[in-house]
């Protein structure tokens, strides 16, 4: 008998076993945020109340939410690194893997969903209006007719009032919402309209520095679901982040954070869990 037959058999077997093992490994998802023991999270750096960088540290609601998510994913606080991002760079940073998650007042839209996946939303913000407290003439968006409204070039907030709602407000341009705030307090304009959390952050900032007291009108004219940006194929990670957000609302952490950052300025916040987008 040819002694090499058993050897050939052994070779065939080994090859087949390797093949089978290879199939097994392909099923596991090594890139999921659930398997990482350190995380890079993209945040804004210039939004008071949401995410503001002073020196090397970040503070705000978005930052706290990001820390809570990381903690609930089992990542220690000293293993979380924040990375500043802008609306222009965030999608590239995520798809290239430079950041693992994005928590940066990042509204979920059907168009963005074609490029990245979203866990959450962790909060549904609404476009609202900020006026000087003494000004009682503005009670809803229609009352902005003829008023001087801040316009930040590139932001969708001004056109939403004038074009979408058809309210003829006068444009006063400013660079960014911090610029709007200064002009509102200086009497150069009458109202600022953008996401309520951003307005609340601005109002809180203004209250800290003194000056003309401000008021949020509490007349929402849009839904802005703030999602947690995540790589498109990381379904397990997306589900884990959703679970983190759910428990964050169930144990009262989210309500506490909302009250801490936005309560003092009279914004009516929603303290129940938002409706998720779903991960698949």
């Amino acid at each position: 008998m040819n002694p090499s037959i058993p050897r050939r058999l052994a070779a065939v077997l080994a090859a087949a076993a390797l093949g089978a093992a290879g199939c097994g490994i392909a099923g596991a998802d090594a890139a999921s945020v659930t398997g990482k023991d350190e995380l890079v999270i993209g945040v804004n750096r210039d939004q008071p109340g949401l995410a503001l960088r002073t020196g090397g540290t970040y503070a705000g609601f978005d930052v706290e939410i990001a820390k809570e998510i990381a903690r609930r994913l089992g990542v220690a606080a000293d293993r979380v690194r924040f990375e500043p991002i802008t609306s222009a760079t965030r999608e590239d940073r995520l798809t290239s893997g430079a950041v693992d998650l994005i928590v940066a007042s990042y509204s979920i839209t059907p168009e963005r969903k074609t490029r990245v996946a979203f866990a959450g939303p962790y909060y549904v913000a609404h476009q609202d209006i900020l006026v000087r407290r003494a000004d009682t003439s503005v009670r809803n968006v229609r009352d902005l007719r003829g008023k001087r409204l801040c316009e930040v070039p590139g932001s969708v907030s001004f056109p939403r009032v004038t074009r979408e709602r058809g309210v003829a407000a006068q444009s006063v341009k400013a660079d960014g919402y911090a610029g709007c705030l200064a002009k509102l307090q200086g009497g150069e304009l009458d109202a600022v309209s953008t996401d309520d959390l951003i307005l609340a952050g601005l109002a809180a900032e203004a209250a800290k520095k003194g000056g003309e007291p401000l008021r949020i009108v509490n007349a929402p004219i849009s839904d802005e679901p703030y999602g947690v940006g995540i790589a498109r194929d990381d379904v397990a990670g997306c589900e884990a982040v959703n679970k983190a957000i759910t428990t964050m609302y169930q144990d009262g952490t989210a309500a506490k954070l909302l009250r801490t950052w936005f309560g003092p300025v009279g914004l009516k916040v929603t303290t129940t869990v938002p409706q998720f987008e779903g991960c698949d």
Partner: protein
Amino acid sequence: MTVMQQAPAPPAPGRRGVRRALPRTAAGRVRALAAAVVVALAATLAVTWAAVADARDGVRVIGRDAGPQVVATGDLYFQLTDMDAQLASALLIGRAEDLGVRRADAIARYDANRARAGAALLTAARLADERSEEETARDLLSGLGRYERLASQALLLDQQDAHAAGPPSARVTAVYRQATDLMKLDLLPKAYNLTLDNGTLVRHTYEDRRSAVRAGTVAVVVTGVLLLALLVALQVFLTVRFRRLLNPALALATLLVVGLTGLSTVMLLGQAERLRTAKEDGFDSILALSRTRAISNSAYADQTRYLLDPGRADTYEQVFFSKSQSVLYLRAGNLAAYNDAVQRQSGNGRYLGFLGVEAGRQGIPGQRAALARVVVGYRAFQADDRRLRQLTGAGERGRAVAARLGEARGFAAYDASLVRLAALHQDVFDDAIRDGEDGSRYWEYGLPAAGLAVIVLVLLGVRPRLAEYR
């Protein structure tokens, strides 16, 4: 005997490793090969058995167990939205009897939804497999109680006021606002998230079982090939060693193994494919369309709320717009522009949103045509909306209310077309599950029988040769 000498049989100290374990006599080698055949056969049968069990379990969970239950909890969202929609209708109708619907009809539908929602909530709570999900189900139950209290309060106050069709009194509106806010901000998100969680359960089972079946298929092929190789080796050994022609019993056993391995492989690949069809072409679409229907119904109710509560008309118009966009997304700055875009949008134009995802699904007979009818229905629904807002804008709220409650049939036709589209996916799902169940039927008898037959044949083939040594 010459063959024996070909393989040099060095003195005992020279035999090392595996060779030392090899039997020295021809009879011993025949016995060893036959034993190896039996072991390999047992392994083949075992991995086939396990893969069949995985396939069956997948079909059972998706087809009979968690799958249908998740679809039932998906309907919870629809029932809750419809409760709030019927409450708004009842309050808007007032004591008017001459419209398409009466207050009592709306209240009856509210009650029916309430009963179904309760049952769906129980199912969802049973499916919950984690503490946070159980907590969500519990919160939902207590929230539903609060909602009902507010709803009956609003209905009672409204009855005392006995108004004509149109916005109710301020005190009724105030209570209704509390109720609808509770529904929108608290109950609906939780119901939706609970269905998502339950859906995750099905997805995990599906992925586990499907990859287990596929890995099992590879294992079946590997062990089957090994078994074949051993049978061939035995055949060759007998032929050469005993100078015989083909051993018929062994040849038959070999053929049987070829057939068994081939059949198992084809069957398992088929089962994996049926699981995929049931999950992706059936279950996923059914769930997504159930959400589409619920969100559409809720947008339809936003039209009622827009007429019911002029103080919040802007907000209700905006949420109608954003819900519409989640159903069929076209880029547009405001509702009027969106409406234009929907009317202009041709049958095969590209769009995103729930219907956009559905448009991306292919290969289901009749699905294209059914989806086209959904889009046509949606267009009519949006055209009704345009008219309703134009009438309100022109100060003709009374005619708008009459149109909303009476003439505007666009929504009903659209909703029916969605139900028909979902039924197509349900058929695909049912067929795949039935085929899945049929596909592995009787294997629990077939496998042992085939195994027994192979063993008997091997024994029949080997015994006469071994007898030569007695």
